[in-house]
């Protein structure tokens, strides 16, 4: 039986409710919302309310409605207040639409009144007497600083390991990336670090940047006026929901054709067919990992048929053959189109063979993308790509092949064009240079597994759920962290000094002292020794930019839960304590490196970081720009408004690679089969391809959704979409718990019979707390340590019959049926 909210009436926001600008803190699209707050003892009426509507009447479709998930009661300035967070009709990003994620922002706030999100951390915790004991910030930070300072001072900064988010939204954003970045890249020069979703500290789209093309170069409005939308390894209806509904759908209604490149048929394909008609949708269901071959063939078609944009290529791209040679940290050469074609040239027939799709469909796709119209004008094309190739086979060359096609057909820097990643979180990166990290950066996970590091600071990352080779990572980290826990337990009655000595002895024996900054107890945090509670967007002011570089200030409307703090202020607290402890240790020079964190608020961190590089941008000015904000880069301030840049490279000058000539480079994307180590052998030895997929209902690794009854009722276990014949052959029924195994480890989930799933291919939802897909992903990476999460093979067996929870859920097709 489906989860029933049993709510049949909600408070009405009064006309004098406080109104706050909110950018959804979940996905990269960054939909605009309005948050209304008002005192506990007040309410609006059907005649007089904050919406200015007659609420005694039924509201029409697309009208304003406060759903129960959009309501909560939270603390504001120490008082309980009503909260309503509703989508903003005036925001050009979403025009009043809410996704299943953003529509639950209010109910995913911690509330001691309604009982929501009681998993949120409220106080610093220190491992004492076999458990985590709550304590003060001063006490916890003193221990962190004493251990960290001793290690970096005596053994060097390379002994400090750091995992830190680099994203916007959530608890990221310009304030918090700056706070952490200043600490680890300025006060300290940490080299052994990684980002939340990849086992190294580097870009996910190196090749696009090396070619001169920033990966977020368009405006979402470009989808509305284009001729062809190409989506590669992405599923935007699920993962960038209102980009699809509010921009791609209008584009298709305006006549755009839709090409999807993905081995799996997703709900995005289904919806595109509904909107554009099947005759205007082409799903190239290629063999896994062969995207590069397909795009090389499309480029070859464009070149050989004279469909490239000769003037654009001549004016905007490098003309002298090879510009950058292949080498260490450089997985392919870069240069002119002619140069690249020597590696890329692929016939449609060759591609059809390798990709497993019809040659005629490859030709058709090339025509839809590049063949000029009957009147001779060029077709406009927008290309969007994401994890299917970012976490795919041969990341560098594959993304290079995709960008090649857009460059060759003049589809970057003009209205109705663009070649962009679709994104996961919002962006919000502002840090000191990371040049000291090097290229390729250290493969962090392997470094930790091999015993590297003595102290480990983890900022809002749960690698146990989301990293590759997760089973081994967890085993090793737990063993190393337990050595320190045992030492701390044994030293429990001693002084602080004796405790620090015990910890240092343990890490010198191979242990690892772990400090975890997060908003909840995480799986990796189970092995931490100090846990510091952070707060999120709207519990603090936060600036981020979305997938079209739209910068907004999402305003604080409630207090941080308990004694939690913004990450930037936690970083400042660490710096203060490091300075103090290092001075006590007699190392004044080192202590001085930790000056410059005199921040009272997150706005102080913003002014110390982002504002220094972008002096036009202040909180006050962003607040005035509201939910439509301004598109970066900001170029000025005129007539009381920030002036932005709707689209990059309109002048044909490509800059992301930093070359002075401003010329774009093409990528010599030569096909070499499975690039990452161990993939070919794993494929040969196992029965099923284990695709790693997302679902609109979950935000990332479900860190808040794991405590949301509506969500957990729908999928009590991670779903594994599976072909019915495969299920029958293995004696698996709908909802049965099944286990996936290979040489890397094992994981489990719930079988979801799916009529569009190909035999021998299953699709498991990523990052679930009840079954980490990363357990079975091998450690294979590319030359820049980009992981290939998407290509994993395993065998499947039944673990158990469907539990009562699993039996109660629907197993019908996810595809819309009129």
């Amino acid at each position, binding site marked *: *039986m*489906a*989860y*029933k*909210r*049993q*709510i*049949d*009436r*909600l*408070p*009405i926001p009064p006309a004098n409710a406080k109104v706050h600008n909110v950018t959804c803190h979940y996905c990269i699209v960054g939909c605009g919302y309005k948050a209304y707050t008002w005192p506990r003892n007040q309410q609006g009426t*059907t005649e007089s309310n904050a919406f200015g509507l*007659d*609420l*005694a*009447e*039924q*509201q*029409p*479709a*697309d*009208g304003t*409605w*406060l*759903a*129960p*998930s*959009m309501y909560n009661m939270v603390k504001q300035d120490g008082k309980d207040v009503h909260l309503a967070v509703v989508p903003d009709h005036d925001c050009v990003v979403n025009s009043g*639409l*809410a*996704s*299943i994620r953003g*529509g*639950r922002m209010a*109910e995913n706030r911690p509330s001691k009144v309604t009982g929501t999100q009681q998993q949120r951390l409220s106080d610093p915790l220190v491992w004492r007497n076999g458990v985590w004991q709550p304590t003060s910030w001063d006490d916890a930070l003193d221990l962190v600083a004493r251990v960290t300072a001793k290690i970096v001072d005596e053994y060097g900064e390379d002994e400090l390991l750091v995992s830190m988010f680099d994203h916007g939204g959530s608890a990221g954003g310009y304030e918090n990336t700056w706070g952490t970045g200043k600490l680890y890249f300025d006060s300290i020069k940490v080299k052994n670090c990684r980002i939340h979703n990849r086992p190294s500290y580097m870009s996910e789209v190196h090749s696009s940047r090396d070619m001169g093309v920033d990966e977020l170069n368009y405006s979402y409005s470009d989808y509305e006026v284009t001729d062809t939308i190409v989506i590669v390894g992405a599923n935007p*209806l699920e993962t960038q*929901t209102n980009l699809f*509904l509010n921009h791609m759908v209008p584009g298709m209604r305006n006549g755009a054709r839709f090409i999807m490149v993905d081995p799996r048929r997703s*709900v995005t394909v*289904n*919806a595109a067919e*509904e909107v554009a008609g099947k005759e205007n949708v082409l799903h190239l269901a290629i063999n896994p990992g062969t995207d590069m071959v397909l795009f090389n063939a499309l480029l070859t078609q464009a070149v050989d048929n004279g469909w490239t944009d000769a003037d654009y290529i001549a004016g905007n791209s490098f003309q002298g053959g090879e510009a950058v040679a292949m080498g260490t940290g450089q997985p392919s050469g870069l240069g002119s189109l002619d140069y690249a074609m020597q590696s890329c040239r692929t016939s449609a027939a060759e591609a059809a063979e390798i990709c497993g799709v019809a040659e005629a469909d490859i030709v058709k796709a090339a025509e839809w993308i590049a063949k000029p119209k009957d009147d001779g004008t060029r077709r406009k094309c927008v290309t969007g790509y994401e994890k299917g190739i970012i976490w795919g086979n041969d990341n560098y060359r594959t993304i290079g092949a995709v960008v090649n096609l857009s460059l060759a057909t003049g589809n970057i820097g003009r209205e109705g064009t663009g070649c962009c990643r679709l994104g996961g979180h919002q962006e919000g990166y502002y840090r000191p240079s990371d040049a000291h990290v090097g290229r390729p950066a250290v493969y962090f996970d392997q470094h930790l597994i091999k015993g590297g590091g003595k102290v480990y600071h983890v900022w809002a990352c749960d690698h146990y759920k989301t990293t590759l080779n997760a089973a081994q990572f967890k085993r090793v980290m737990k063993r190393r962290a337990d050595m320190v826990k045992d030492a701390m337990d044994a030293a429990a009655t001693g002084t602080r000094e004796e405790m620090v000595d015990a910890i240092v002895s343990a890490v010198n024996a191979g242990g690892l002292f772990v400090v975890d900054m997060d908003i909840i107890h995480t799986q990796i945090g189970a092995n931490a020794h100090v846990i510091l509670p952070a707060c999120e967007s709207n519990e603090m002011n936060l600036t981020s930019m979305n997938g079209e570089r739209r910068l907004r200030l999402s305003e604080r409307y409630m207090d941080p839960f308990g004694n939690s703090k913004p990450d930037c202020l936690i970083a400042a607290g660490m710096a203060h304590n490091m300075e103090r402890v290092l001075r006590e240790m007699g190392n004044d020079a080192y202590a001085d490196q930790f000056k410059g964190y005199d921040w009272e608020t997150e706005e102080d961190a913003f002014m110390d970081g982002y504002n220094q590089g972008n002096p036009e941008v202040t909180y006050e000015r962003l607040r005035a720009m509201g939910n439509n904000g301004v598109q970066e880069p900001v170029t000025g301030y005129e007539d009381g408004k920030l002036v932005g840049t709707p689209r990059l490279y309109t002048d044909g000058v490509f800059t992301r690679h930093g070359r002075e000539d401003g010329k774009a480079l093409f990528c010599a994307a030569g096909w070499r089969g499975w690039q990452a180590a161990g993939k070919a052998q794993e494929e040969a030895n196992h029965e099923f391809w284990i695709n790693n997929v997302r679902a*609109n209902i979950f935000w990332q690794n479900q860190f808040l959704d794991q405590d949301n009854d*509506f969500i957990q*009722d*729908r999928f009590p276990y991670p779903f594994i979409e599976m072909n019915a014949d495969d299920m029958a052959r293995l004696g698996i029924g709908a909802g049965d718990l099944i286990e996936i195994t290979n040489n890397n480890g094992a994981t489990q989930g719930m079988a979801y019979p799916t009529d569009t799933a190909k035999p021998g291919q299953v699709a498991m939802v990523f990052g679930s707390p009840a079954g980490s897909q990363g357990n079975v992903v091998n450690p294979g990476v590319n030359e820049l340590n980009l992981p290939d999460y998407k290509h994993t093979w395993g065998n499947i067996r039944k673990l158990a019959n469907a539990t009562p929870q699993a039996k*109660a*859920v*629907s197993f*019908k*097709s*996810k*595809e*819309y*049926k*009129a």
Partner: protein
Amino acid sequence: MKCNRLVDAGRRQFLRGGIVGAAGAAAATVFPAQQASAAGALAQVDYPSNRLANLADLAINEPMDIEYPDADSPGVLLKLGEAVEGGAGPDGDIVAYSVLCPHKGWYLTYNGEDRSLNCPGHFSRFDAEAGGQQIWGHATQNLPQFTLRVDDKGDIFAEGCSDLIFGRPSNVL
């Protein structure tokens, strides 16, 4: 603003086959419109008890257009043919739901083939056999399900609702 256009659209979508008479019966119900404010001191919304149809009016998997708790709130009454959890009637197989999508209020259409309710606006889907559970979609709740009672004459009454209906601050306006 009242949106009669949408209400009419909803009627058209569900007026299929021989169920016109039943819709007429629902429209004849008298709604206690003034009771909502009078009952304001109560903790719960006071729902009307509205006769939707008689068992004899229902055919298996033939959706019947209903309105509950008032004429601006369209719904569907279904006899599924197999008992479901929460099903009413002697066979435990009768269910009723709001057909305003709890995402953005578009009218859902019923697909008899897989017994789902589908939103043409943004492609959300709900399972009529699983308590209105959202199969896939953007809504942040499952489909509001009407509480049914069947009397000894076979008359089917709606007397409550599991979730807030789209477009209202209170299920009884």
